[in-house]
């Protein structure tokens, strides 16, 4: 089904985090990134060389750069801040790079070279100790999950040069772990496993639509997929996924009803990602397995297990498809600089 290709050397190791691999689809440069402690480590294709004349191109054709998160501390020194998640968000004007950290949120242009917005905690009396979960909704709004259980919403100007804090979106009682969006729906999950579905109304406000109660076990990764096969009742069937301790659960995005449970992995699942055009889903776990599933949304949802491979002695932390059809994907592992690549021959 899939065959392991030559790995990409990431140069630095990936941290033990959830969703610790991102792919910039929109960019022809097809950049990848993962978090290494206080740095987002970016790999650009060599044709980005004109943007970074100082950077060397590696043998496998990549330019490596670190976007380091540091803030001034009390005694005039620089302190390094741990990043909990880094990802690109798709906006109307183009993509932006967002870092969710212990001390605040950093937003850059897609190359990570220009800082556009810094949202530090504590200034407005916020009791936030970390942020986690990055998504964009409607092309002009960036949503970041926070430890206080609020989603922090920012609006982005038409050309992307101005980012403005808009509001705290309530709905969770526990620290938010993951955020995903599809159409006008914003889905967020927290450390209790609660899942909340909001609708973005008129591009300005969020309306809470459904809450799916959790069971005390965090839901650390989410994927939302709009199935493009028209269902019998002539509207899109939409599903999203959460995990609890090796389990993948499938819910209806329209009403929060449980559609399926997959006993997918032996240990906690650190990342899931769905290829938009095919409904293929990749999941990775600390049990060293990467698995690929296929979802079909005809009159009712169908699920099949397509592929599994164990990457020996690697606890997997990130996974993303490299194309919308789901014919290739990349995987990262804790404490390893290797980016494993799988292709469908």
């Amino acid at each position, binding site marked *: 089904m899939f065959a392991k290709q030559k790995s990409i050397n990431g140069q630095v190791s990936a941290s*033990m985090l959830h969703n610790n691999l991102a792919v910039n689809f929109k960019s022809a440069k097809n950049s990848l990134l993962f978090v290494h402690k206080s740095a987002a480590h970016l790999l650009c294709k060599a044709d980005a060389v004109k943007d970074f004349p100082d950077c060397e191109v590696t043998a496998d054709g990549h330019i490596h750069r670190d976007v380091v998160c540091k803030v001034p501390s009390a005694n005039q020194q620089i302190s390094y801040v741990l990043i909990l998640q880094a990802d690109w968000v798709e906006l109307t004007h183009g993509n932006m790079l967002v870092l969710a950290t212990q001390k605040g949120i950093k937003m850059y242009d897609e190359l990570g070279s220009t800082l556009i917005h810094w949202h530090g905690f504590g200034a407005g009396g916020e009791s936030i100790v970390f942020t986690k979960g990055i998504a964009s909704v409607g092309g002009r709004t960036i949503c970041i999950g926070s430890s206080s259980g609020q989603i922090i919403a920012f609006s982005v100007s038409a050309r992307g040069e101005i980012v403005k804090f808009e509001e705290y979106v309530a709905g969770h009682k526990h620290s938010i772990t993951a955020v995903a969006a599809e159409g006008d729906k914003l889905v967020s999950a927290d450390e209790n496993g609660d899942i909340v579905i909001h609708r973005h109304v008129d591009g300005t406000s969020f309306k809470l639509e459904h809450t799916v109660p959790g069971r005390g076990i965090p839901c650390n990764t989410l994927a939302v997929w709009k199935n493009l096969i028209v269902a019998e009742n002539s509207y899109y069937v939409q599903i999203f996924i959460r995990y609890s301790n*090796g389990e993948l659960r499938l819910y209806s995005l329209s009403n929060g009803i*449980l559609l399926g449970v997959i006993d997918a992995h032996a*240990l906690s699942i650190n990342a899931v990602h769905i290829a938009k055009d095919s409904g293929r889903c990749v999941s990775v776990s600390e049990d060293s397995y990467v698995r690929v599933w296929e979802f079909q949304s005809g009159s009712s949802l169908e699920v099949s297990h397509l592929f599994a491979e*164990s990457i*020996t002695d*690697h606890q997997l932390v990130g996974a993303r498809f490299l194309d919308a059809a789901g014919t290739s994907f990349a995987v990262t592992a804790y*404490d390893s600089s290797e980016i494993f690549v799988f292709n469908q021959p």
Partner: protein
Amino acid sequence: MSVIAVLNDIISTMFNKRYMDEIFKPQELHSKKAMRTVFDRLAHASIMRLNAASMDKLYDLMTMAIKYQVTLCSQPRDLLLVTLNHLDGIRAMVHNQPIVISTLDSLYHSFMDLYGKMQYGELQTVRQCLLTFFQDMHVRVSIFLKEGQQNQSGRFVLPRGGTVPMGSQVPGKIVLYDQTGEVRQRKQFHPGSTYKVAQKEGSLDLTGDRVTKLGCNMYSTHKPSETTTSGVESKKTSNHRTLTQAELSTPDPLAKAQLDLLSHLIGSGSASKTSFRINLFNNDEEEENYVSPVANQIQQEGTEFVEIDARKRTKDKYLDRVMGEMNISGGGASGDDDLLDLMDQA
């Protein structure tokens, strides 16, 4: 009795109330430099002395052992059980020292008040934080290599298959529901490895079965059972079993066990010898050549160490006397006595 004094000194320094109060305050992750300093002080809290190279090796051994335990936790709650295994191990060493035992009791309560009350998600964050500290440390440890727990590249060997965490299902099943919640379809898939469901949950009580062996004395696997009474039974127990009450109940094995534990704490010792054996390096040449990857890394991070050249051999009468006291079996300075060598070099 000096051995017990060494143990007591180290344990009471480590669990000193003021120090523990500090440890339990909310704080950022220690830097590697700070952690190393704490460990240096702890190791030197007693009359025992280690030279710089041995200290490096001991520190590497300790960090890799903890990294192993935190890495292999199958779920965040295991962090608590690993710590309780550590405390149980210490408790077994000092079981006839009521003051130290009461310190351990109060430490247990502080620990459970803070970490025992944490939710799954918080413990998960704690584990991620710890693993960030240990990230990029790949020192190869001989006992791990020998036991097949670490591969040559320094990565830990992860079990493929085996018991899933308590409350989890084994992989391999897909269940689909209809809109009313009725099961619509059940499917199986082959998970690729063989898994089984956990039968028992580790106890978080003051004493109890922690179930996980992570955090138990990892050297006890090399130690043949010394007590005839529990001989048969002990063969059935796990490889990573810590010292049992039976082994500690008679005076002679007790002294041996404690010596053993202390030497095991520092290096791979052999329990069959009654002499105090700390085997950090095979020979002088190896010691001269030993460059601690971790110490190296710390230095690269811009830290300067006070260099103590402990590699030059100088005779020290005080240490000779200490050694005399420590040699409980009266084996004297035989050529095989590595601790003598070690102390000699201090």
